[in-house]
């Protein structure tokens, strides 16, 4: 019997392996446990409100049993949609420039370092920036457009950094093959580099969307409304968003509003999960090609 090359692995190392394994599993479980607590709590406390009417109705401060999240949900979808519509083209283009077009230089490094810094700036700062630049200086007003612009600036660093990372992961050989076959740099980018990296880019966009849907602080600063019964229908309309609706309900002294808050938390998590699942399915499909 020839000794296996692994038979020399000591019991100590096996234990270490098992230990790290268990440690990592615990780490995952802790994260999941909190999620379960939030979901179960949302269902348990919010159950009396979880119905189709809760999704269809506007808020109702006089009759909490008849209140719903429709207006807040529409507001959230508008804000996220606008955010992506602005941030994705700009972010992807910026990443392509930095990664594929710009020659290495001090200026590029400077810009690059700043983008990485911006990704860590607290969101309230973006809110104040949005208030000063979009709402006041550019006279956009406290409406959906201002919210979309502010949130787009907020998620832009994330989109740029992830897209750059995705482009960097494309093997050199693919680019060189394309160029060797007579493809122009532009053709190489559009037909090879981008399609190969699209899965990772999508992940970045999911991160951006998830962050945009969960943010509240900057939106309060740029004028999200606490109580509104009309859903937005165009860019200059006022709006509220799900997290703000949850905040407003959960701070109400009456028990029936707390039930609304729990139900709304559950809805928010379902929306987030649905968004993530869609993106994961899409990404897997694209990567298999």
């Amino acid at each position, binding site marked *: 019997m020839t000794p296996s090359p692994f038979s020399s692995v000591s019991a100590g190392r096996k234990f270490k392996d098992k230990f790290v394994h268990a440690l990592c599993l615990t780490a995952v479980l802790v994260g999941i446990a909190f999620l379960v607590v939030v979901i179960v709590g949302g269902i348990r406390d919010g159950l009396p409100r979880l119905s189709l009417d809760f999704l269809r109705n*506007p808020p109702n401060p006089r009759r909490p049993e008849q209140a719903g999240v*429709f207006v807040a949900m529409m507001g959230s979808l508008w804000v996220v949609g606008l955010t*992506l519509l602005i941030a994705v083209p700009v972010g992807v283009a910026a990443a392509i420039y930095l990664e594929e077009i710009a020659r290495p230089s001090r200026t590029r490094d400077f810009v690059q370092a700043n983008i990485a810094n911006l990704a860590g700036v607290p969101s309230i700062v973006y809110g104040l920036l949005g208030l000063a630049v979009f709402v006041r200086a550019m006279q956009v007003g406290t409406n959906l457009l201002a919210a979309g612009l502010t949130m787009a600036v907020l998620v832009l660093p994330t989109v740029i950094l992830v897209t750059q990372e995705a482009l960097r992961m494309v093997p050199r050989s693919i680019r060189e093959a394309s160029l060797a076959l007579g493809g122009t740099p532009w053709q190489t980018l559009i037909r090879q580099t*981008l399609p190969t990296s699209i899965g990772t880019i999508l992940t970045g966009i999911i991160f951006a969307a998830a962050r945009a849907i969960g943010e509240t602080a900057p939106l309060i600063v740029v004028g999200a409304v606490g109580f509104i019964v009309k859903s937005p229908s165009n860019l200059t309309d006022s709006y509220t968003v799900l997290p703000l609706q949850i905040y407003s309900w959960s701070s109400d002294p009456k028990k029936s509003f707390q039930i609304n808050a729990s139900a709304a938390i559950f809805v928010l998590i379902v929306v987030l999960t649905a968004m993530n699942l869609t993106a994961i399915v899409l990404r897997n499909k694209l990567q298999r090609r």
Partner: protein
Amino acid sequence: MKAFQLACLSVVALGSLGLIGCGGPAADSTTSTSATGGSTTAPKGDPNLKGTISVDGSSTVFKASEAVAADFMLAFPGVNVEVSFSGTGGGFKKFGAGETDISNASRPIKQDEIDAAKANNIDFFEVPIGYDGLTVVVHPENTWATQLTVVELKKIWEPTSTVKSWKDVRPGFPDVPIKLYGPGTSSGTFDYFTKVIVGKEKSMRTDFQASEDDNVILTGVAGDKGAIGYFGLAYYEENKDKLTAVAIDNGNGPVAPSKETVTDLSYQPLSRPEFMYVKAEAYARPEVKAFVEFFLGTEGQAIVSEVGYVPFETATYDRIRKMFESGKTGSIFQDSTGKPVEAVLEAAGF
């Protein structure tokens, strides 16, 4: 195939917008049907009145403002009232920049806020909307603590408090364990109570039974001989038979809470007026005028009382209306801390 992949990228990017595209048009119809469907009072206002009123400011007044707005929109379905809660100071910042029509406030406007508004040519009406009065309650069989001084209340509630039994509060009180009830730390009532009693906002001992539901505080205090708690005067008035209200001594002798003592501000430091500041330019719009009238009218007063405030006497509302009719803008309550609203209005000639 590559074109397909790019298409996919854009589809995902526009994905949520697509959702909105489906939701947008449906939004209006659903909103309006459910809003009127939930109505218990028949619309009686002018249905042709249209427009949007933006309200911001104090989170304490938000509850009243939001509730009045909801009923107002049932009566005037064409008008859209949007209420936010940036806080009194945050509200005044937006008000001074001309971004809102009405600013709610749990204190009178300050001089620098008036100056900021003036710089943007914003003139305003100052509208007191009601009193906020807090009542400290004990068990009906508690015969010793029917009067407490502010200092004693502070001794009970402050973060460093060592009070475990009533005998620690005042020599001569019986040795009955004290049990504390109060609104949760996120409520405006908690903020106000800690500010005037403890002396520092949001600062209180942590071993008290907190509940945002007044009913929990009521049952708790009514079921324990040694218990003490506090909530809005309106809630006490409805449950006078189950509890005893403590008379508060602020250095000028004990004063029991009542509509009268809150209204003449002799019940101190637990009562104060709440305000609404209306941009003069906005008041010229019929829908804003209708909203302010609704707020000061019977429906509005009923709601003000329901959310826990003490509404004014009819005579005071008459004076406020008189002030509007005279076109008097600016602040008359700015330096009036501690003076009853009625008296300030009278002194100003209304």
